[in-house]
């Protein structure tokens, strides 16, 4: 029985695949490059395709496979991953970067768009979970640093169809910037942990 379900689950994306290829052809025809947003942004990678076909709820076995695949993209620097929470707060506030009217580089993390972080910032989004007090709960040791760094670098390595961008894998944020965001979340003196 469970074997049959697994087979069906694996077969389902194949049945939908044609329509996704058609959508991609429409995008290639009906969209045009502008600024830094070139047409190389149109083709889906395997993860995007599976998540689209599964409406972001892939069967568990498939999700684990995708996550293991994304784990392989992680590039984690040696040593401490704790940067400067003040710079991290500025990055978290900035929703800029990567759009066709942004200059290449200088991207922010858009963190407050989706998450609650510092209690001083009341204008926060709710697409992602609240991260207020995150470091108080998780501590600031090497494991916590590594987890937060990895999650920001590639959220899909932990949740295949997460709505959170892959900030490292996509080249949006540098290693130094991700370290600053790690500090914003974990540093005991960060407002997030006050």
């Amino acid at each position: 029985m469970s074997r049959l379900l697994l087979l069906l689950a694996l077969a389902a994306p194949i049945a939908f695949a044609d329509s996704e290829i058609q959508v991609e052809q429409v995008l290639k025809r009906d969209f045009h490059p502008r600024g830094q947003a070139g047409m190389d942004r149109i083709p889906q990678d395997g993860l995007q395709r599976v998540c689209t076909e599964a409406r972001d709820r892939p069967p568990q076995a498939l999700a684990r496979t995708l996550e293991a695949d994304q784990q392989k993209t992680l590039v984690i620097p040696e040593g401490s991953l704790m940067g400067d929470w003040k710079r991290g707060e500025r990055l978290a506030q900035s929703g800029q970067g990567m759009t066709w009217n942004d200059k290449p580089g200088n991207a922010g993390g858009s963190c407050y768009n989706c998450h609650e972080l510092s209690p001083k910032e009341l204008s926060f989004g709710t697409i992602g979970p609240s991260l207020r007090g995150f470091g108080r709960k998780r501590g600031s040791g090497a494991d916590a640093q590594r987890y937060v760094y990895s999650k920001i670098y590639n959220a899909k390595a932990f949740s295949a169809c997460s709505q959170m961008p892959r900030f490292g894998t996509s080249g949006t944020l540098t290693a130094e910037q991700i370290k600053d965001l790690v500090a914003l979340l974990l540093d005991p003196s960060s407002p997030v942990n006050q």
Partner: protein
Amino acid sequence: MIRAAVVFLAAVCALPAGAQDAKKEIERYQRMVSEGSPVELFEIGGEELWKKPAGPRNVSLEKCDLGLGPGVLKGAYARLPRYFADTDRVMDLETRLVHCMTTLQGRSLQDATRRVFGNEDRPSELEYLSAYIAAQSRGVKMAPGTRHPKEQAALELGRALFFHRAGPWDFSCASCHGEPDRRIRMQELPVLYEPRYARAVVATWPAYRVSNSQLKTMQWRLNDCYRQMRMPEPTFGSEATVALNLFLAATGQGEPYRGPGTKR
């Protein structure tokens, strides 16, 4: 007045109050701006443009057929997007207006689409015209075309586009508009594939947007969503944009039109 309101909003956001209080303040602010909205000025400007002779043939748009016959404006917007036999394609308000500018007035496509989105100092003629034409559907139930095979194909394409994840940040429309009670910063996000949320949205666009001090069209709304999705730019009036527009309009159908609205 509008600038004062923006300053007021900024002050509200900075208040050290709870999120619930902030929400109430923002609702109060929204009521305030809708009472002082300049939507009517856009409607008047649109009427002038509709009736003004222009282009190489020096004729007005008054004979433009928006689907209910040449020059029929009452309720026409509520039926869009829809299939047009003369072009053999599904069109939304803006693409149909451009069609009338080229066929009736003899303007080149390049001329008619030179400024499809305006700015605060100089609105686009399409923004004025959209406000005027949409206003003639007030009280009329939204009922876009969904029966013709090309309308059905567009609807399916629109739905597929809505859920299609792509680009450097992996976004689809559903990334932001897929679950109830979600916000980006303080902006609440309607779940646009569900009728109960889509209806209020469809019934109030085009809309005056206080943060831009501009009247904005649906084509602009879709364009700016794709900008924020970090995608390349959708071409104005392309099949993809009309299909997505039809998917949203069809999801929100049945609601009496009450726009042009006023947004944050």
